[in-house]
């Protein structure tokens, strides 16, 4: 693969490049969780919506497994970023 491939930003939230994903895999990562823990890919505001599939494909290619067999990372709430000021008000209208 060319140098320019490695420079492609895979995770736009955390500025993680394909090269960094590949390095994590070459250092032994075999699961999505390990890649997330090493690189922060998928930890930003979009929580992996953009990069999840790209990383799964790269992991499948490098480990020789079908994408379906790549162990997925856990998807956690909230599904979209929510301001703490709004969360603090949950239920307040009902109680008034």
């Amino acid at each position, binding site marked *: 693969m060319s140098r320019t491939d490695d420079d492609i930003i895979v995770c736009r939230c955390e500025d993680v490049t394909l090269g960094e994903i590949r390095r994590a895999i070459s250092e032994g990562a075999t699961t999505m969780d390990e890649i997330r823990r090493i690189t922060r890919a998928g930890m*930003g505001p979009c929580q992996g919506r953009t990069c999840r599939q790209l990383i799964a494909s790269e992991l499948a290619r490098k480990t020789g497994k079908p994408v379906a067999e790549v162990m997925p990372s856990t998807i*956690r709430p909230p599904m979209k*970023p929510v*301001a*703490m*000021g709004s969360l*603090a008000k*949950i239920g307040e209208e009902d109680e008034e």
Partner: protein
Amino acid sequence: MRRTADAVVIGGGVIGAAVAYNLLKLGMRDVVLCEKATFCNGSTGRCGAGVREQWGSEGNCLLAKASIDMFEVLADELNYPHDLEFKQKGYLMLAHTEKEWAQFQKNVGLQNSLGIGSRLCTPEEAREIVPALNTDGMLGATFNARDGHANPFHVTRAYLTTAERLGGDINYFTEVAGIEVAGGKVKAAVTSKGVIETPIVINAAGPWAKPVAEMVGVTLPLFTQRHQILVTEPVGWLLDPMIMSFSIGIYCQQTPHGSLIMGIGDPHEPKGYDIGHSWEFLRDMSRIITRLLPALKDVRVVRQWSGLYTVTPDAHPILGGVPGVDGYLQAVGFSGHGFMLAPAVGRIIAEMAFGRETFLDVRNLDAGRFERGEYNVEPSVV
């Protein structure tokens, strides 16, 4: 995976990783680590990432102080390619009740007597340290500049990759199902990938420490309990130190990455292995923290999760061997503060495995202290 070893370490969290590294550093050759999932899958990867010396007992103070000494040089010692994100911007402990303020005065006296440079602050002085802090109702605070933060994933992986470089055999997705003991001596670890003959087994299994101890007939006074936590989007600088309150039961810190990580210690949380998450936590955490740090109103939460504390009756870890099972060692029951104690504990357990005198005397942290009634409960936990 090797079939014979000088020692088998159970657990790929920060404790197991630090133990494995220290065994190799002291010159052991065949060190095998078995982790049932992958690194940082238990409590380490879910923790609040704080490191502090400000404890209320001599045992925790000394272990934490020695660990911070080691964190300060860890990046150089392990020669690891990623930033460990170790920062020392302090912990600010807030007192809102008379009882808490009295405890803090006692704690600072103890800490200072052990060489820890913590100090009492007025609410005004606390606001100088954290200008964003709402000090309404606050009686005072304590501050220690040497406390701070490190990245649990990278610290653990730094220990593991260095252990591998020194010849250690690190195995993921390898579960230990049994420990063979004969004539009062450890003989082998039975794993999902085969049997490893070994004279030493080290239990660093975090939340699963109790079932692992049962494999050698040891019953540990441990229970596990969920603690919920969240992280925000990264924002510009808001605060330097970790903010912590025991009476409110919260902690909150801005990481070097810019995100804020925070959690609640809920006294009503049932015991068990549940690591689900609740919307009530998001609401309660947001209500509490936006009162203390009003600027957080506009900061968005991106992720919530939870992890397990593995709690002992005195909130101190259980370290060392047990009578009658030669070659079995344990480093368990960290009660929510294992990450910050890992550097010192890793060295101590390795020294024990070599039969050496340990660099800190931890004989009073053995498993037998509960039956003897020789323990004091740590007061300063969230």
